[in-house]
């Protein structure tokens, strides 16, 4: 068995997602090779060579990979895929764009977004937006996989003794070209689209305290700010902050409820969040009944400490 990991990088360094993919490849077993398709990307290649578990890095360096276009990347993978049983990429925008092209060119099925390796042919992946987990077996000779990063611990960035081997860069496909890129500014995300929400209740005492205590935490986490109806009614924040039955319905990855009791109407608006944290000094507050992690503490001490240590 031999695994080929399609590296995600910015030429100069390896993107963190690649480390999770290398862990998944290690879990499958056999050699782990990494393909770096880039332009002036020797730094990324040597970074990959040092990752624990990597025995070889294949560097395809050339202008065709200057903008990391999927068409060229996929062609490069296929050109160097002959000896591999598993080809893996991160389930990121880049990996999701490249891997299916590779699979189709090889006439193999792809298994997307794996979260667990059962054996070399069998993997677990979420379906229906994570409401079910499917255990899927591939009957193909080569498995093309994308890997959900959060499901695999990142491989150590050092300790590897991989060699770097250069291969010919493919010719540019000519069908697509890069125009421009725009990095997202770290403005506060919309409540309903945010991955993390920091939400405050009447326990904060005033609008000033709400802003003073919660804003640093939200900034640090890139989170949106929300509030209970009680906090909105008390005038701490405007109406559009309100989460709950009569406010916005949210389901972020992480919901941090601070100084709120957890009235049923509020719970109705946030109970589908993946992880709920509650910080409240009243140990009997209903919010603890739905929280995955509850911290019974004075929020005015706990939240600044959280900001400092996170």
């Amino acid at each position: 068995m031999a695994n080929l990991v399609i590296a995600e990088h910015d030429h100069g360094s390896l993107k963190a997602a690649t480390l999770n993919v290398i862990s998944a490849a290690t879990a499958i077993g056999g050699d782990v090779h990494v393909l770096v398709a880039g332009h002036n990307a020797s730094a990324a290649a040597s970074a990959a060579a040092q990752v624990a578990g990597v025995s070889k890095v294949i560097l395809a360096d050339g202008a065709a990979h200057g903008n990391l276009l999927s068409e060229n990347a996929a062609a490069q993978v296929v050109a160097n895929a002959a000896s591999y049983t598993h080809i893996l990429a991160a389930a990121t925008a880049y990996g999701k764009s490249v891997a299916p092209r590779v699979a189709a060119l090889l006439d193999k099925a792809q298994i997307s977004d794996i979260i667990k390796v059962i054996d070399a042919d069998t993997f677990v992946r979420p379906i229906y937006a994570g409401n079910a987990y499917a255990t899927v077996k591939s009957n193909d000779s080569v498995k093309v996989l994308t890997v959900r990063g959060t499901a695999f611990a990142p491989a150590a960035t050092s300790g590897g003794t991989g060699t770097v081997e250069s291969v010919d860069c493919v010719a540019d496909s000519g069908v697509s070209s890069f125009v421009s890129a725009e990095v997202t500014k770290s403005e506060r995300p919309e409540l309903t689209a945010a991955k993390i929400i920091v939400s405050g209740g009447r326990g904060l005492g005033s609008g000033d305290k709400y802003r003073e205590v919660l804003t640093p935490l939200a900034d640090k986490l890139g989170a949106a700010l929300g509030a209970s109806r009680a906090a909105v009614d008390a005038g701490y924040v405007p109406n559009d902050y309100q989460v709950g039955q009569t406010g916005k319905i949210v389901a972020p990855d992480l919901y941090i409820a601070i100084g709120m009791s957890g009235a049923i109407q509020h719970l109705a608006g946030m109970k589908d969040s993946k992880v709920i944290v509650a910080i409240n000094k009243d140990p009997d507050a209903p919010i603890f009944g739905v929280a995955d992690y509850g911290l019974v503490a004075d929020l005015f001490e706990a939240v600044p400490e959280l900001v400092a240590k996170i």
Partner: protein
Amino acid sequence: MKVLVPVKRVVDYNVKVRVKSDNSGVDIANVKMSMNPFCEIAVEEAVRLKEKGVVTEIIAVSAGITQCQETLRNAMAIGADRAILIETDVDLQPLAVAKLLKAVVDKEQPRLVILGKQAIDDDANQTGQMLAALLGWGQATFASKVEVAGDVATVTREMDGGLETISLKLPAIITTDLRLNEPRYATLPNIMKAKKKELAIVKPADLGVDVAPRLTTLRVDEPPKRQGGVKVADVAALIDKLKNEAKVI
């Protein structure tokens, strides 16, 4: 310019699916089925291109059981001009769908194929890219903005850390992301007119495509239940849980 829009019939996004008690799959008998939301966005985008005068004909295509005709009628109610159903009872996987679509593309010769980036049932996110590879065409996945001028499509894509704009030589493949547009409601008069539009039915064998599945689903499970109500001792313990157990920060 002709555009092809593949659409998939899936469990309605409001339905919370249940895993069958024998773990053989999810129970989708008697639940409401609808057009995959990303496919709706694809149809909408094609209709907007037609309204701008860029596109002259929109062909909706679906692959699957007879009932997929409803999904195609829906696409025609939104604005597709005609439809093709590739009818089969086989459980179609993305590679098979991509091959079927390639056969339709070879016949219809569209300049653009617009697809949803993924279907909300299998969440595979593969078909558009696979079709592009099979055709040797350029692709722009996760589109949040599309402009077509002459023989070039300029597409802004949603990447992990921001936006990227690329230019595609036509013919090409575009897959839609959520923010590309907000699909309109099919007007009721158009629903009635859709009934009178052409809907052709072909079989995979007519297209010479082998659609046998490559992947076998061994079992389907409920995701692990959340452990509610764990109290942590202090802030450090909380951060540890969030980082290492929940992995959300």
